[in-house]
């Protein structure tokens, strides 16, 4: 019975009908799955792969750019800070200088004013002294005239007169 094994082994006999239908069905699979589905899927996958790669590259580029910008900003900020410090220092120095100049000017003016005043005072005093001297001279002449006139009447009266004049003078 077992000797017929090969004879009965139908699956080892290629049936032309089955061959034909396998060809038909596989052609169907190739055109309607292989070309109609696998091809676009491959394209879509490839597109997605490149897109993902591009996004990663782009992100890396942007990150680098951001880092660069951050550095730039920090540098600019430091520069600005330095500049502002410098400007303030300069302004302070200028203000100080200006203040000192103003004080000096004021002092100068004051000195000038006081010098003028002293000169005026001295002038006035000098003129006053001159006036006084002139007045005293005139008065002395006046007194001397009156003394001379009274001497002529009595000695007593002359003395009294001199005394009176001297008192007046004081």
């Amino acid at each position, binding site marked *: *019975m*077992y*000797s*017929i*094994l*090969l*004879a*009965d*082994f*139908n*699956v*080892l*006999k*290629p*049936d*032309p*009908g*089955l*061959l*034909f*239908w*396998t*060809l038909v*069905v*596989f052609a*169907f*699979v*190739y055109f*309607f*799955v*292989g*070309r*109609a*589905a*696998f*091809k*676009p*899927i*491959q394209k*879509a*996958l490839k597109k*997605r792969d490149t*897109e993902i790669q591009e996004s990663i590259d782009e992100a890396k580029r942007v990150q680098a750019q951001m880092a660069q910008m951050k550095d730039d900003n920090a540098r600019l900020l430091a520069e600005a800070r330095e500049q502002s410090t410098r400007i303030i220092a300069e302004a302070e120095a200028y203000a100080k200088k200006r203040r000192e100049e103003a004080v000096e000017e004021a002092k100068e003016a004051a000195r000038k004013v006081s010098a003028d005043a002293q000169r005026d005072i001295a002038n006035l005093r000098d003129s006053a002294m001159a006036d006084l001297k002139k007045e005293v001279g005139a008065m002395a002449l006046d007194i001397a005239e009156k003394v001379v006139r009274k001497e002529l009447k009595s000695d007593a009266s002359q003395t009294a007169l001199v005394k009176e004049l001297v008192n007046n003078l004081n």
Partner: protein
Amino acid sequence: MKLTMRLLFLLIFGLTTTGVFASGEQPEPTEQDSGAHGEEATYDPVTTIMGHISDANEFHLWGHVSIPLPIILYAPDQGFTFGLSSMFHHGETAVDGYVLNHGRVNRVVDRSFPTGHVDLGEHAVHMSSHEVDGKERDLGLLSYNGQEYELEQPSTLDGGLVGGGITSFYDFSITKNVFTMLLAAFLLVLVWGSVRRSYEKNEGKAPSGLQSLLEPLFVFIRDEVTRPMIGEKHYERFQPFIMSLFFFILFCNLFGLIPIFPGSANVTGNIAVTLCLAFLVFLVTNLNGNRHYWGHIFAMPGVPKWVLIILTPVELLGLIIKPFSLMIRLFANIAAGHIIILSLIGLIFLFGNNGESVAGAGMGAVVGTAFTAFMNLIELLVAFLQAFIFSILAASYIGAAVEDHEHHGHEHHDEEEAHGYAAAVKHQH
């Protein structure tokens, strides 16, 4: 401990009952009925298993219940005959000289047999052993009106090497195998069509649903099979073909593992199917072979002239041997898997001594069920593995044919040609 034992017994008992119940539904015992002649009703494992892995013109469920399939027959002297397999009434009706013998259409050799629908009665078709060329062969016989008519099977293309040959008619029917292939093809179109639409719908977005289930498989085949085997430059051109091969074989293999309708057909375990696929690989490989490929076959560079006398015929043989190995590998693996599972199920009937020993049948059911479950898991692995191997080898053959040979890497390529697959795999890593 006691509880564990009880559970164990319950489990075994449960398995036994389901096994016996399942065995009641198995078509094995009834298989012989249609051609039974008294003592022939005993269980013959070889005939049963061969019947089960063979192609059939109907989907046999149990007893006389089967799902009919379309019949397309062609006889050069009679033209085409169309119909449904149900018109044969499981071998009890002959139509234009055609009868159903164990699920397969046969033709009465004697042309004087009446045409049209002829009622034959029960058990008219039976098998008998004959001595043909010193070998015992099964011969289909038809008893009608007290006369024995010889039957012939559909033509096969083995040229008589394994007992077939061209007969007086050809069977182009939608057989069980063709039906399963069509089913697999439509399922592939449905599944991958929907995945393709998802790629259009979800463009620029993450995959979802079926798409995310099948994308890893697609990417796996692309990154492990087509890209490394065919090369960065050419792989996209051949990818639809290689992937069609992989998924077609995979789906057919998986359908074969389903024990009930619409599965159970031994599609990729039939030499006609693997022959067709291997032939396509042969065509694609050699039609795309470049100058270097043919140069390496007819005049291997760097080899003394006199060696070519030996080497060239070997290389030419290799052209045929490569696809031939593809054909045999897939066929043998899947057919063997089906045979092992059917043998394990057959243990139920062998141990049961054809229904005499219920205890034996129970024992067979326990052993058979456990081993079948185990084998089914292995077959699941084999279904993926064989689809993978077929496609990776097809890809490596195509890769060798389209590879661009640069002069600085010549020796390496020669080695690759010589060692074929092994070197190609090594090259990949």
